[in-house]
């Protein structure tokens, strides 16, 4: 099933009848008039009042057959993405200029919906430069919309922009475990910037984000970083221990000093979930 049909039927199922009727009415007006943009603009503006911010669940299947469960979209987001898909399918305007126009004319929530649905709207990454520019926002809602639980940046962002997204997310306290495809996009610049960020925070006597290790390849870092990792593995904060350990599962190789720490902590770890990760680590390393 194509994404439009999947979204459309999910919305019809999950929204009250009056909202569904309104939605079908405006979809029809977009798909059948000579000025689809005008109809789309008003419908998109009204969509949150009509569909509401109730939770929305859908499973999207990619062209390669990979399923992803979308659970952070709201009905209003899904409706706006559907409306944009409808407009894209009938417009004669080139996709990049259309997306720029939709983004410029949207309010913050409309813009967020476009960013959330960007991998559906722009499958080939034609709008990627502009999308990278959207990360310059001061709005946490917009940054989270493009950066969190969204396959688009990992697929289409240039290296520098992807790194900045990861770093800015860390700065703003977002959990980068939610950056899809982060593992495959790790690189030495990103590792070094994150290691530098840890240094800065430690020097300032402040905590650093617990998810930061997910952006770091230990092999890119100097041994100066190892004590920080070691400290996280034995931290009082269970989430900090979890992320540090889980990030080690993503490493090509683990430094000896860290391997020692893993062994130590395996004996002492009280949390089942975390002990499971340590177990996996020792097995995979043949430790």
């Amino acid at each position, binding site marked *: 099933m194509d994404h439009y049909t999947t979204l459309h039927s999910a919305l019809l199922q999950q929204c009250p009848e009056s909202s569904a009727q309104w939605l079908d009415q405006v979809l029809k007006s977009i798909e059948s008039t000579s000025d689809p943009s005008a109809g789309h603009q008003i419908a998109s503006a009204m969509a949150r009042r009509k569909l509401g911010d109730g939770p929305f669940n859908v499973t999207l299947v990619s062209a390669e057959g990979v399923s992803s469960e979308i659970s952070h979209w709201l009905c209003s987001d899904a409706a706006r993405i559907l409306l944009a898909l409808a407009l894209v399918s009938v417009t004669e305007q080139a996709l990049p200029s259309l997306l720029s126009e939709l983004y410029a004319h949207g*309010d913050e929530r409309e813009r967020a919906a476009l960013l959330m649905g960007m991998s559906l709207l722009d499958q080939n990454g034609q709008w990627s430069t502009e999308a990278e520019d959207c990360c310059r926002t001061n709005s946490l809602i917009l940054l989270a919309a493009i950066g969190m639980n969204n396959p688009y940046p990992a697929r289409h962002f240039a290296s520098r922009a992807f790194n900045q997204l990861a770093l800015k997310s860390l700065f703003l306290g977002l959990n980068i475990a939610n950056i899809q495809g982060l593992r495959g996009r790790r690189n030495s610049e990103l590792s070094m910037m994150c290691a530098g960020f840890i240094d800065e925070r430690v020097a300032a006597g402040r905590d650093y984000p617990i998810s930061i290790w997910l952006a770091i390849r230990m092999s890119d870092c100097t041994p100066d970083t190892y004590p920080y990792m070691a400290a996280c593995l034995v931290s009082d904060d269970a989430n900090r221990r979890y992320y540090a350990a889980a990030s080690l599962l993503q490493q090509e190789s683990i430094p000896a000093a860290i391997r020692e720490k893993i062994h130590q902590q395996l004996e002492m770890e009280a949390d089942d979930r975390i002990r499971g990760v340590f177990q996996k680590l020792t097995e995979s390393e043949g430790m």
Partner: protein
Amino acid sequence: MKYFDPHVHMVSRTTDDYENMAAAGIRGVVEPAFWQGQPRTSLGSYIDYFDLLLGWEPFRASQFGVLHYCTMGMNPKEANNRKLAREVLDILPRYLAKDGVLAVGEIGYDDITPEEDEALLAQMAMASDFDLPILIHTPHRDKVGGTKRTLDMIRDAGTAPEMVLVDHLNELTLPLVLDSGVWRGHSIYPKTKMSESRMVELLKQYGTERMVVNSAADWGQSDPLKVPKVGQAMLESGFSEAEVRKVLFENPIEFYAQSGRITLAEVERPEIDQTQQWMNNSVLRGQAPIVEG
């Protein structure tokens, strides 16, 4: 005590003001689209300003737990740049459709010119198209003449008076609007126009029905805490807490609720981090999602 300031130009105020307003009990504000002190010279200026009323300013307000709404419109003063005003009127509809836009305004008269007539008429028609109430600015010079002319326009257009809030009223102009059925707005300033004590006298004389009070605080000498200060003056002069709440919280919200885009309930509820309101907690600083090995 909770307050709502239905007319305040927060774009010209600092975050200190937001902090003080929040501390004084102001839960929400409406910021009418207006001029910026110095004439705009291009459509782009209006577009950026309108976008700011929908984006940056609500974000700034949210940092202090204050809900920020706006009205959109072509203000009377700049309506006199007819060519530019027409360009603005062309793009206004897309803004009137947006969430958080509670009315067409502030529109009305400044100098009372044919250009101002034109803009006022066009926007009254748009208000009808979008089912939005109207916020009317009465002029500071020839206020009586301007108010009378505005009432005539409203009547001639067949606009339902309960959908209209006539603002910046005083002892001379309030009696003019009493019988028309419109809502009655009063702006309280530190040195000029209306004061807290004069406002209390008006409330004593004319009652609390459809009476609305605001600070209209802007870049000039003004005080964004005037609404709570009027509340205090009301209590001191014998009004009950219920009456204070009616005039300074319920009335303005009830007027704007006619837009279908604000409710009393949503302004009553406790502060919520807006980003957490719509994104799953696990995405932000909260719980840890599972990481695949």
